[in-house]
């Protein structure tokens, strides 16, 4: 069982390596799956974590001090609020857009017969 697992893991790593070594000229234009390299992901995660950790060293001024009873007003002062907010707002927008696309998408020739 354990060996099987190992084999599959090996396979995936070799596949990844293959994908990496593939030069752009070899990829067919019809293929539409952007490949984002593992090092890019690593860099992305590191920079994101640094931007959050930076908050330990700075003094953030308080938002909405007059609105103490407001839950949202208080949340805006939480640690890491901006990161969470960016992530949630953008993911929400993407999901909303994806959901609405069911109703809103039409073929490119949709308006061809209209004035």
């Amino acid at each position, binding site marked *: 069982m354990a060996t099987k697992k190992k084999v599959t893991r090996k396979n995936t790593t070799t596949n990844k390596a293959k994908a990496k070594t593939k030069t*752009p*000229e070899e*990829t067919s*234009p019809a*293929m*539409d*799956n*952007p490949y*984002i390299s593992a090092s890019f*992901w690593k860099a*992305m995660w590191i*920079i*994101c974590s640094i*931007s*959050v950790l*930076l*908050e330990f060293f*700075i*003094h*953030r*001024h308080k*938002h*909405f001090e*007059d*609105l103490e009873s*407001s839950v*949202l*007003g208080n949340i*805006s002062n939480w640690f*890491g*609020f*901006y*990161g*969470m*907010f*960016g*992530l949630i*707002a*953008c*993911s929400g*927008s*993407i*999901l*909303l*857009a*994806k959901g*609405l*696309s069911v*109703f*809103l*998408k*039409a*073929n*490119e020739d*949709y*308006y061809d017969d*209209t*004035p």
Partner: protein
Amino acid sequence: MRIITMTLLNNIPPAFLLIIGAFVLLILPARARKVGAIALAFFGVYAVSQLVEGSNVTPEFLGFDLTLLRVDSTSKSFGYIFTLSAFGALIFSWSERCRLQNTAALVYVGSALGVVFAGDMISWYLFWELMAISSTFLILARNNKRSRLAAQRYILVHLGGGLVLLTGILLTIHETGSIDFTKENIYQNTVAKNFILIGILINAAAVPFSSWLPDAYPESTIFGGVILSAYTTKTAVYTLVRGFPGEEILIPIGCIMAVYGIIYALLENDIRRILAYSIINQVGFMICGIGIGTKLAIAGVVASTFCSIIYTSLLWMAAGAVMYRTNKSKCTELGGLYKTMPITMVLVMIGALAVSGAPLTSGFISKTLITAAAEHQNYLWAWLALKVASAGIMLHTGIKFPFFVFFNVDRGLRSKEAPRAMIAGMSLMAFLCIYLGLNPGQLYSIIPNSDILVEQVSFYAIYIKHFDHVATKFQMLLFSGLSFFLFLPMLKRTRTISIDFDWFYRKGAKLLYSGIDKTFNSINRAAEHIVIKTFLPSLVKFIINAPASLTIMLFRPIWEESLSADKTNIKKREQKIISQFSSGTFPVAYSAIFILIFIAILIFLGRSLS
């Protein structure tokens, strides 16, 4: 000599300089025309800088004194950016050969300047309409069927909006007798105020009057798109700053525009349509600021407009350069261009960072003022919506646009780098994005209400003293970017368009037409069936048969008595009477009896009436 030119320029509205110059350029040969257009735009910047604060140039029109020059920090900042972006766009369009386009663009820019410096509502309206007409030529110049139809829809929407505005203006003049283009004058009559507000919001592309923008701009020429992106909506923002600061309804309208812009920009496949929705998102930001209406908010709105014109132009130029080189404009057809168009890519990245409001760019020092104003006024929801908007713009314009054009999948496009003139135009805009970001004091010194920004004019005050803002902004942008890459499979573009409000006048109008056609034609058919085929023949039949039937009805009791119910005999007599009536031949006695009855009726009627 210098004093003479200065006093001369003080009294010439820059609008006339550009509009008259535009027509002079028409007769020049190609090279002189191009140089002349660029020089004219540059001279426009100089002419704006020479204007002295106050109101002057007041010719009489229809018994009213027009004010063609109302100069203050608000109109001057708009004047600067309008002429400056025209200068950049004209450099960019050096390889453009179309005679019509330069003239149309300069008239368009000139009339936008006319609106900005207008101190009364009549000249405002006249320049407003001239803007709509001249800009239509920039769409028509593409010269294909799609652009002609788009131009048709564009001009119809704007003429409609112009009429709404005119109604409001006329109502205001009727109510107050004054043509002053001020908030006090507009707010005298609520109905008039609402008409004016709707008229302006149509030009500002506010939801639901927004679809004309993504419908028309992407159909324009490459140069046309760059010019169009800067003026119509921003002029609308200017008039709102003048007439409606602090109008609270603008806060939700702005927030809705901002979010709507994000959703549609994410759905779009065409790069210039992505940028068109990005304009709506940004104008939403500004309109929200106008609704907040405090000194800080208005300063933020003017600063945002200033910076937004620069980076929006830059991105439209880049999209134009890509289209110029590849003849393609869709995310599904573009990709991997970083290899052959690296300079364009770098310039786009600067624009993308600026549009996202990244620190050290012009977006950071302008948009932040509006969010700060929302926070100071405790508009929590507006603040959150603005934050969503600034995170969202990072998503669709900051990352999606450059990613799908320059990276993503290599589609084997090996186009050359953009022409030098295009690079020069884009470089000027990119330079301004960074220059203003590093020297916020330069921008803050020309915008209105700059007195409240005294503490924040230096690089130190913004980036070092308030480092927490910089850090949190970075954090938000990074996580917005992270979500783009996390959801990348969902963002894969398809060869589709998204249905917007223009559905109502494109498909909807057709449905309405066929609906009206079906309803009224079926009513017509039913009426024909009932009146002509059923009612009228039976009426005719009744009129023909009535005298005979009435007579038979009168005689039947007598016959029944005298002939002791001999049915065949009665039938015979009935037949006889019917034939007599149909041929009009009666025995003399019958006629005499009828005449007597008739005279008796007449006498009776005459008596009773007298």
